[in-house]
């Protein structure tokens, strides 16, 4: 199952879809909406997709995973619209005869999805809003990665302050 949905994601349903007597393991990943990002208190997260292409990319990611690991089934679902804090925005379930394959392929699927899936995230935080990763979002951010070199949006030469719809001097201390 590869889908873009507007309703809450059921990981149980995904597991049932990939479950099989041929499988000895199901690895799952849930990406959930976090209440803080780069020191900003997030009020809500809103996702937008190019659904037809996103589903096509999910299928390609799963097909590629199947060439690398011995898998039984793969399911990938992403939610769009406003996703309340703490809820799943993306879910992946991978079944395989053995756990190592399932776990590695699941990891591969979420990393690939993050790079190629035509899905956008708008973060509404205290004092503003920004499309993550985009033009005005100076951190070029993969928002859930740790250890970035820059924590201040003006660290980047030729900053995009004029383009920023948000207050670039948001406090960063809550991180």
């Amino acid at each position: 199952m590869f889908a873009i949905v507007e309703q809450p994601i059921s990981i149980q349903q995904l597991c049932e879809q990939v479950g099989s007597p041929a499988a000895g393991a199901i690895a799952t990943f849930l990406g959930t909406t976090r209440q803080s990002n780069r020191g900003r208190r997030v009020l809500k997260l809103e996702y937008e997709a190019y659904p037809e292409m996103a589903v096509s990319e999910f299928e390609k990611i799963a097909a590629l995973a199947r060439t690398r690991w011995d898998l039984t089934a793969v399911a990938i679902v992403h939610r769009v619209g406003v996703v309340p804090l703490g809820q799943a925005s993306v879910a992946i379930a991978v079944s395989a005869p053995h756990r190592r394959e399932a776990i590695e392929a699941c990891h591969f699927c979420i990393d690939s999805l993050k790079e190629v899936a035509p899905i956008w995230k708008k973060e509404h935080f205290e004092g503003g809003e920004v499309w993550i990763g985009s033009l005005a979002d100076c951190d070029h951010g993969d928002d859930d990665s740790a250890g970035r070199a820059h924590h201040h949006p003006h660290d980047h030469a030729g900053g995009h302050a004029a383009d920023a719809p948000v207050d670039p001097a948001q406090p960063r201390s809550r991180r």
Partner: protein
Amino acid sequence: MKLRVLYFGIVRERLGRRGEEIECAAGASVADLMTLLAQRNDIFALGAGTIRVAVNREYVDGDHGLADDDEVAIIPPVAGGRKR
């Protein structure tokens, strides 16, 4: 030729529309279309280098040749899309 151009995320928001039909010279490439779009709105110039393009739901390069009735999606940086 006529193209169906789709906008998403920050580009959709700045332009205030989800898409439009654009008339383009026969034989135009994706890069030609981007030049045309950049003349119409700053968002495309600002996004140069970070905006990707998909034609008929497949990512393509700037030299990709466009055809009549192609569905051309302007893809600003995606939610998780840091290059690594």
